[in-house]
């Protein structure tokens, strides 16, 4: 409970500043939309092809959009050294990271909710019958992107060549989560939709492991 309060305060701050500037949301939405539209023109969107390529393209677009969105989450704390003020506050440093993870998760999930109908229309996919299971996969996959992405955004924000460093660290580490997300999503668009427990298990384990590691080493992530 000691962590919940500062996380709530900082999450409210993140949401307020983002909805005031709309920098991250606008960038993410436009980027994912462009990628989905461009890819939809590269092949004939028949049901078979859409089922085969759609889920992979969706997660690829979300990954790149996520890395675009995650990078500023710590670098924009640097303009007035506000991270120093947060680190000096009587709160656990892991609360700062947890609030950032939750804020990024909210932004990316909101972008997904807005883009899901566009994705379904462009790729001729019926999402309504599998909506509940699709949301579960999106939540777990997005959480994976946000946990790992936020941690590495914190690390890379203090490094030189930070723009290059984040994708270099992020992409290899997220590969298992992306494979699991794409496979789980693809299973939902088969002729007989099914959610493979193994991929959900991989995603849940991935999220749990990285959340625990973040919890354990959160104090060191924000140090100079």
């Amino acid at each position, binding site marked *: 409970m000691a962590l919940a309060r*500062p996380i709530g*305060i*900082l999450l409210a*701050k993140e949401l*307020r*500043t983002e909805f*005031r*500037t709309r920098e991250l949301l606008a960038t993410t939405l436009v980027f994912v939309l462009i990628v989905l539209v461009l890819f939809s023109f590269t092949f004939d969107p028949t049901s078979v092809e859409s089922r085969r390529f759609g889920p992979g393209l969706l997660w690829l677009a979300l990954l790149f959009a996520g890395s675009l969105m995650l990078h500023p989450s710590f670098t924009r704390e640097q*303009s*007035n*050294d*506000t991270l*120093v*003020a*947060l*680190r*000096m*506050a*009587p*709160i*656990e440093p892991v609360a700062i990271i947890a609030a950032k993870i939750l804020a990024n998760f909210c932004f990316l999930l909101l972008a997904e909710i807005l883009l899901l109908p566009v994705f379904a229309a462009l790729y001729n996919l019926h999402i309504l019958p599998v909506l509940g299971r699709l949301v579960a996969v999106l939540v777990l996959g997005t959480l994976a992107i946000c946990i790992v992405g936020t941690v590495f955004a914190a690390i890379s924000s203090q490094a030189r060549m930070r723009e290059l460093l984040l994708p270099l660290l992020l992409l290899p580490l997220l590969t298992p989560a992306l494979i699991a997300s794409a496979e789980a999503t693809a299973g939902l668009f088969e002729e007989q939709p099914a959610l493979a427990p193994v991929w959900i298990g991989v995603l849940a384990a991935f999220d749990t492991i990285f959340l625990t590691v973040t919890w354990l080493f959160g*104090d060191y992530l924000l*140090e*100079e």
Partner: protein
Amino acid sequence: MQPGSPTPTPAKSAHAGDSSARHAPRGLGLEFVDFAKRYGPRFALRGVSLSMSPGECVALVGANGSGKTTLLKAAGLLIRPSAGRVSFSHVNANGAAADSGSGDNGAGSCAIKRSIGFVSHSILLYDELTAEENLVLFARLYGLDAPEDRARAALEPAGLAARAGDLVRNFSRGMRQRLAIARALLAGPGLLLLDEPSTGLDRAGQQWLGATLADLAAGGCTVLMSTHGAGETNSFVTRAIRLAAGSVVEDSAVSGDARAMLAAALAAHEEA
């Protein structure tokens, strides 16, 4: 001073009549023992040993790169030492010195941080939030009662009450600095760390800061600040420490005169 920004008035020490500060130590003493901080092969601080009693007002002087800011960051628990340690003490209700810990563990660190205020080179405030929203945010993070009231009470003496609803990005340099100082004073610190706090302040702002710090010092707050030797803030300094290449080379508590050291620092700064 900008139009619409009334003359600031000295802030009353938050130690008086403040429920959250009543239980906090009045002044926090600190002690560096063989403290060293290295960034790669370069030492920012090396073998610094000094102690400050609760309620002391100490000025750090020295050329750029001498280690003043690093020492302030170390006192604010913002950096981990490469060697040595920093520890804190306060005067308890019986008037005796009591150990407050070193801030090495989470709970101890939070308790000490609650008593530290920091004014940095940067303003440590969010441009996308209003002045009041910034102060409410930090009042909540510090667990203060009635954060909105505390924020408004802090804006008044800084002369920013009329601009409480304005985004910080629209503030002038001087107004931003006054807001940064108001933020540092918000929780009634027992130890105030100031990194060249007069930067960007006009004469009225400097007078406000000087009077505010004098009031805090009278209330028992310990003050450690870096300075180039000029400004209203130096009038209540009781001790001066000169750093060079990350080491303490002169301390008026050991030998020398604080006023003379400040005057020499000012002369060196103007010459540079």
